[in-house]
């Protein structure tokens, strides 16, 4: 069906509206702090084949998992067995492509005059679905069964209402059942809202028009990406990065390696050189890894290209099974997040060589999360405090990187200190900028942060960050950033450095300090204007010592003034002392 460009644009906007309305419903009826403060969830629409058309919400990399979730439902329930009013849920990553077990997916088929025309889908993180530790994602996991309750695609809701049996099973498997069920119902509600709205849109414009617009959205994304790729030189480049370890074999770094080959209007990303799947939980299922890689490709081309299944048509993946980015059942996955972030950073480093105008220095590595299980929160009930741990963006050709932000998906999920202390028996002692955490450069990285907690009650802490050993790398003469670290009882005789991945029981009074890396630098630090370095020192982003050592700018400690002469001499000598 061929349509005029005006009707297309009108209906396209209406599809965006539906996804936005779904997202609003998801976030505004959710119960858990993860949904409300971290916005760790998305909602959107796929076509009748499950290809993602539009995704709304913080984490755009949910795009490909939508497809696998729909296919997972259809594999268990043939299309003919689906009925109007059904909503399915699934969280087994091997059956739905979602990144890890706490991410539950709801799938509502959209019927129009008896025919399935689309699926309304939502992915959102759950506070706890059982497993080894509060929050479900334990450092000690060695197989997927340790990660919590695994639901295959099951019918959770019908036209008659909720399936009490399924809900009872979920309740029975969570440490915080009310919160999980509250959020899950919000997810169900938002997909049913999306389905109803899509049906109304078909009533208004006709189902043929709606299908044509969906297909135009996918083909436009594919053709725009191909057009961008045509401008790149035909070449093959590679990049690599490392995780410190997998949480199980503490001496073995985990390698992510990609070869990016561009020919004509086609890009191939080959991950064959990456490490094999791991015993510990850093594995990242292939649909999720591919989605991260595609986001990196968009970042290096044109981020105004809409994220949808059209991306897959322009990029070809080579990922042999059994790699850390293509683990096979029953490998554990709960700590996929830093792996996915490293996949993104490595792909961005590779394709940046093919399109230098959009190359940026990498963000600080070591994103992840922290979960604390309290037997008694302030409400008297058991509760899980969950916070995303972000880093900062790398410098660019135009400006310094953004500070304290989630890389890949640039939102800032910092739960207010005042909310945390009101809900949980904990005192936040510091939430500070981390001096010298940013990689030096003509444009430096964004600044990282320090967050310090004093736990006022016994609790179970799981920290899941990464890259305390292998940090980010600079670009075009810029420097890598300082690596993240986590210390228990800092500045005391009992001080202990934790690895990036640990679960431990804490007694009341224990202090834990997390330092999260800044972004890497872009361009030679000695090229950074002296005045900007002086300002960085005044702002506390850079120490006087680092100003001299990294930037060759000599500042008098007492006056704060730049010693212009020694600076000039120092910079000419190239910083050797």
């Amino acid at each position, binding site marked *: 069906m061929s349509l005029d*460009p005006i009707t297309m644009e009108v209906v396209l906007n209406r599809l965006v509206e539906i996804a936005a309305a779904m997202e609003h419903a998801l976030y*505004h009826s959710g*119960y858990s702090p993860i949904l409300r403060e971290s916005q760790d969830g998305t909602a959107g629409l796929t076509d009748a084949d499950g290809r993602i058309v539009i995704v709304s919400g913080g984490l755009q990399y949910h795009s490909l998992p939508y497809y696998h979730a729909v296919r997972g439902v259809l594999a268990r329930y043939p299309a003919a067995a689906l009925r109007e009013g059904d909503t399915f849920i699934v969280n087994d990553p091997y059956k739905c492509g979602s990144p890890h077990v706490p991410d539950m997916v709801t799938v509502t088929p959209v019927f129009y005059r008896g025919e399935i025309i689309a699926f309304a889908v939502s992915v959102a993180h759950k506070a706890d679905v059982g497993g080894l530790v509060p929050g479900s994602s334990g450092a000690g996991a060695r197989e997927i069964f340790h990660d919590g309750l695994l639901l295959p695609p099951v019918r959770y809701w019908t036209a008659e209402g909720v399936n009490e049996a399924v809900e009872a099973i979920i309740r029975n498997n969570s440490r915080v059942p009310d919160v999980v069920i509250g959020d899950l119902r919000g997810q169900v509600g938002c997909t049913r809202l999306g389905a109803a709205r899509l049906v109304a849109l078909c009533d208004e414009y006709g189902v043929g028009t709606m299908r044509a617009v969906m297909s135009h959205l996918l083909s*436009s994304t594919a053709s725009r990406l191909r057009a961008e790729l045509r401008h790149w030189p035909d070449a093959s480049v590679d990049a690599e990065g490392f995780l410190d370890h997998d949480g199980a074999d503490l001496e073995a770094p985990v390698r992510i390696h990609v070869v990016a080959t561009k020919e004509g209007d086609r890009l191939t990303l080959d991950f064959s050189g990456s490490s094999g799947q791991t015993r510990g939980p850093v594995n990242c299922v292939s649909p999720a890894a591919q989605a991260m890689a595609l986001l990196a490709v968009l970042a290096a081309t044109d981020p105004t290209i809409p994220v949808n299944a059209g991306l897959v048509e322009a990029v070809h993946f080579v990922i042999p099974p059994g790699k850390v980015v293509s683990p096979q059942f029953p490998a554990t996955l709960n700590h996929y997040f830093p792996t996915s972030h490293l996949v993104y950073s490595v792909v961005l480093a590779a394709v940046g060589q093919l399109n230098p105008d959009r190359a940026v220095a990498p963000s600080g590595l070591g994103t992840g999360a922290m979960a604390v299980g309290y037997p008694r929160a302030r409400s008297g009930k058991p509760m899980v405090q969950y916070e995303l741990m972000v880093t900062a963006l790398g410098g660019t050709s135009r400006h310094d990187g953004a500070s304290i932000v989630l890389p890949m998906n640039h939102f800032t999920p910092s739960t207010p*200190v005042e909310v945390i202390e009101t809900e949980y028996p904990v005192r936040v002692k510091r939430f500070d900028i981390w001096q010298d955490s940013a990689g030096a450069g003509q444009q430096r990285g964004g600044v990282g942060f320090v967050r310090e907690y004093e736990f006022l009650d016994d609790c179970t802490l799981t920290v899941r960050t990464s890259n305390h050993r292998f940090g980010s790398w600079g670009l075009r003469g810029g420097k890598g950033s300082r690596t993240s670290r986590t210390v228990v009882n800092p500045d005391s005789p009992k001080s202990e450095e934790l690895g990036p991945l640990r679960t431990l029981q804490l007694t009341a009074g224990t202090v834990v300090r997390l330092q999260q890396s800044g972004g890497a630098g872009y361009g030679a630090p000695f090229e950074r204007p002296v005045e900007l370095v002086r300002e960085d020192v005044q702002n506390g982003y850079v120490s006087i010592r680092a100003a001299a050592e990294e930037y060759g700018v000599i500042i008098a400690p007492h006056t704060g003034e730049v010693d212009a002469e020694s600076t000039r001499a120092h910079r000419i000598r190239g910083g050797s002392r």
Partner: protein
Amino acid sequence: MVGIDTGGTFTDIVAMEVRTGSFRISKVPSVPQDPSTAVMNALGELLGVGVRPDEVSFLSHGTTVATNAILEGKGVRAGLLITKGFRAVYEARGWSRPSAVDLIDPFYQKPPLLVPQKLTEEIEERVDFAGEVVTPLNEDDVRRAVRRLQAQDVEAVAVCYLFSFANSAHEERTAEIIRREAPRWRVSLSSRVLPVIREYPRLSTTVLDAYVGPIIGRYVSRLADRIIEQKVRTPQVYLMQSNGGLMRITVAAHFPNQTLLSGPAAGVVAGTELARVTGESHVVTFDMGGTSTDLSLIIEGRTQETSEGRIAGQDIGTLMLEVRTLGAGGGTIAWIGKDGLLKVGPQSAGADPGPACYGRGGQDPTVTDANLLLGYLSPESLLGGKMRVDPTLARDAVKRRIGDPLGLNVTEAAAGIIRIVNTHMEISLRRALQERGQDPRKYALIAFGGAGPLHAGCLAAALSIPRVLVPVHPGITSALGLLQTHVKHSYLQSSVGLLSRFPVARMSTLFAQLEARAVQEAQEEGFPATAIRLTRQVDLRYLHQGYQLSVDCPARTLADTDKSALKQAFDRLHDRLYGQSAPAEDAELVTFRVLAEIPVPRAVLPELPPRDGTPDRALVGERRIFDLEKGQFVAARVYDRTRLAPRDVLAGPAVIEQFDSTTMLLARQEARVDRFGNLMIHTGGAGYTGGAG
């Protein structure tokens, strides 16, 4: 009574003669370098036509001075005092919601800090969630900080400590020390500016107060002096606030954040007043001007408020009227996207060069150009013919930039531009209605601004809104709103706890404290305590939810039975907004609110006499306009608005022209002139019937 509304291009003045209800309107160019000059020019224009200064009994003013200071980054050099160890609260900006593109663009940047880290001082002190002091205030830290900031030439300072909403003693003591050590500084305390939970929005709001406070202070004191120089001696001189109320100019320097949205707020006020006199309980105000459209809901006669405002990326938690602004106005540009589809906005050609048809060198086709080509606007109709436009320039721009590349003729391209800009407005309005759980079929659309009455018929029909009200003077409706409201101040205090366990005595005490402050400040503002009307609200949420809803609370000593009534009201509201509620679960109290209203003189819309004869007395001709539904030009009658009178009934398709706007009446729509001279259009309610989801 005089209202003066400063906008980016023009300063509008409305003067109403109280006895007769007759009013005059006029526009003078704004003077961005010294906005008070434009205000005085506007006033001078009025005094120049025979109004005596002592006849000005009431003067109300809407200003963009503070807004512009933020947009242009030209606030004052301010310092910030924070709890030691928490520099990342401001640096992180934990509320930021990047656009869909920024979300995945590695070139993403956060908005600039209005107070840089080098002017931020850490103070040893700490209060816990219950308001108990954990670490006493280190007063030497405060003195050292003041000395360092003195060396940096700041002229204002913001103080935002953790949990100061629960216990403000440390902030109050800090202010005392600052006033002694640096008496000339303006001091903003977060526990005064916004005493609610969540440190980042409170901090950002307090910083804004410090950043623009001295600028508003200087502006209002200069303005007050100049008004007196003009021998206007009335004490009734007010500024419009973002909350839709007035404040006396003498206290405006204390509430700079309240001026940030005064322009759009005045439009909402005017809409509220129109809704009241015409008996409409559910209304959308639709203000479409040259560069943007403002939409706001009035539900059951009440304006809606938000505490999640944002100006140029700066977050502001001060309560303000909830107004959705989108880049859709007469000057909004049409272009072809990289996906090959026609896009409209959000960029605007502004006033200069403006739409292509203005002939000021604008090459981009705009919404106004499309309206001209479709016959909705006539070349002679803009500003009563004062402004000439050239349809051939509009045609060339639409053909070259849109029609030819897309293979459409000029009419198809122009119709496409209108359909798409209408779609943007339709979506924005539908989202506003649905997020508040509202059924559009209960609503009337009040259309004003230069372009509002032109697009309102389509917008209402698309949303199944049955009625459109076009006020007598759509172009100056916002300025009229300056004369149609009360003095209003909100007082907030967070105190978090389970409703079931929260002692009612403490609830009553918290309200009493807020009310005492309201009464005291009203007296300082020059009003007798007896003039104040106080209303109470509490913000509630289900335990662990992130969003709270406001529920009315009785104004008396509270009893335990009131708590269950509050809970039931909250359950009902939650059910209406989100389609679900949990009556069996406990609710959590988050914030207590007191709203103080003080009546001041208000302009009353005059009723007009009916005239003899039929509406044909206003008929000035006929022209061909494009019917979007039929896809062809149809004949439409053209009326002169000034010659219409109450009880006239017009049938569409028709065009009704007046000095400051043009109203479109679509086929099958009917307009009646009411006793005030407003046009009430019955839309027939065709179109989208999705309801309120």
